């Protein structure tokens, strides 16, 4: 959305409280697995953030969620008569409604939080996309089948190839086109090491849970619980024990207690 439209929407958003029937849309998960690693991670991050704020949201799976989204990215939420996609705008949107997790931070801490969020987006998300779409083994065995599951032949193949081409272009533009899978695993390790060093022995990255915790949890939990062609990525993340206990803690606090 353009800057003026965003400002307008946030002014309108501030007028209404959070409704009961807010919904979050993501690709199919469960019976017909369409959702991919990166989308699942982003969706889980948003769900965690909304649970942290105490905002109720229903998760709805649709095969064309990607095309419904205003920016083409998963997940997006439908609240009242507004549609907002991606964690950044959703955080701003909930802030306009008066729910914010990072108000207690001072300027320097907020700068750090934003910097770490960009680190996760820049490294972890790009690495996930690379492994899904640019690593031949994963693409042919897992991604192509999953991405086109709800569609019949030949549409499923066409859509999968189109998306692969798009992601490859993006990788070339940011300079990841020439990397090998091993280099990408190395980058993921470095990113996890940075996160692990920042977290240390604290329960959360800052004194209170913030959107950074939601984002990191979303990505790490998905990596830890998703089966890929090999367990290299899993092992690399698992080698950082404080990140493992961080994920377990958030899962217990926000997901197990709420489920009946």
């Amino acid at each position: 959305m353009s800057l003026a439209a965003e400002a307008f929407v946030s002014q309108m958003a501030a007028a209404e409280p959070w409704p009961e029937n807010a919904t979050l849309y993501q690709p199919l998960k469960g019976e017909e697995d369409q959702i991919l690693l990166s989308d699942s991670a982003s969706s889980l991050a948003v769900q965690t953030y909304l649970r942290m704020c105490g905002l109720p949201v229903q998760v709805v799976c649709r095969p064309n969620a990607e095309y419904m989204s205003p920016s083409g990215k998963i997940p997006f939420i439908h609240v009242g008569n507004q549609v907002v996609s991606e964690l950044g705008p959703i955080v701003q949107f909930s802030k306009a409604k008066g729910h914010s997790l990072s108000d207690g931070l001072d300027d320097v801490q907020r700068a750090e939080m934003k910097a770490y969020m960009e680190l996760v987006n820049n490294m972890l998300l790009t690495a996930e996309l690379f492994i899904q779409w640019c690593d031949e083994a994963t693409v042919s065995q897992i991604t192509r089948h999953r991405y086109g599951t709800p569609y019949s032949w030949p549409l499923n193949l066409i859509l999968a190839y189109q998306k692969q081409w798009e992601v490859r272009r993006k990788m070339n533009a940011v300079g990841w086109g020439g990397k090998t899978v091993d280099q990408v695993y190395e980058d993921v390790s470095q990113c996890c090491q940075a996160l692990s060093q920042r977290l240390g022995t604290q329960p959360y990255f800052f004194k209170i849970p913030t959107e950074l915790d939601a984002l990191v949890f979303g990505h790490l939990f998905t990596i830890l619980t998703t089966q890929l062609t090999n367990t290299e990525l899993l092992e690399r993340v698992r080698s950082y024990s404080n990140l493992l206990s961080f994920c377990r803690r958030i899962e217990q606090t926000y997901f197990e207690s709420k489920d009946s």
Partner: protein
Amino acid sequence: MAAAMELRCWGADWGLPSVHTDSLVVLAYSRFSGAKLTVSHIDWTWKTLTGGLPELLCGDSIVQEPTQILSFMRKQRFNADYELTARQGADTMAYIALLEEKLRPALLHTFWVDTENYTSLTRPWFASRSPFPLNFIVPSRLAGMALSRILLTKGEAPLHRISEIEGKIYSDAKECLNLLSYRLGTANHFFGNSPTSLDAFVFGFVAPLHRASLPSSHLQSHLKQLENLTHFCDNILEVYFSSDHPCPLPLPPPAVQESMDANLQKLTQLVNKESNLIEKMDDNLRSSPQHKPHRLDPKPSLSSANSSTPA
């Protein structure tokens, strides 16, 4: 000692040792860590056609990309980061990611996509530094690469149009500059008393924006209000690069009322943000002729900020 290292990069101008962001990062880091580099400017050679600058040649190996060059130099034991704690090292990675994601698209746009800046500054500079007939090819190729990078990373599919994301990338960049300014505070360097790789990266990104004489850039005017960042750049130029440039900048007098300045700074940043927002809303309203005139007057809070902004 290690074999002699040679760095190939774009040339110098505007009071900077190089006008190219990535080259500046490597040059600054080499000064901080005490590495001796022979710098060969590739202006006026056919090497301007090959991309992948800056390049470090050491013996038989060629290293590209600033992060890889920096880690190569660290392996050769030119390390400016050895005093950092593990957590500060993690912070460095995070801030570099912030610069890449938020600031780089806006810098690419300011120098390569914005028509006024491109035609009056960037294109003549790069064209004049390339031999015939490359001076026709190189600037437009670099501009095309910049545009595609912005669109692919920030553009919202399927409408890859630059006008829709301009506002967003500039507001992200201004926010990034503000965050850097908060983090730097009143210190001379980001960590402790000696410069590190984060200082090199911030210098590389911010210095061209600070020094280039851009005809139209609200990002540059926003930067000029963040005095600690401009002092940071000037300080590094003064201390580490002054032997190359015979005209050092006079250091500004030390700020006496620091807290008042900080508050004034925050106020100007807020006002700037608001006035920018109003400008954009205004432009949007003017450019949409068929808009129904319901509920389009700005809310009272915005209009009061409007009246307080100095014209």
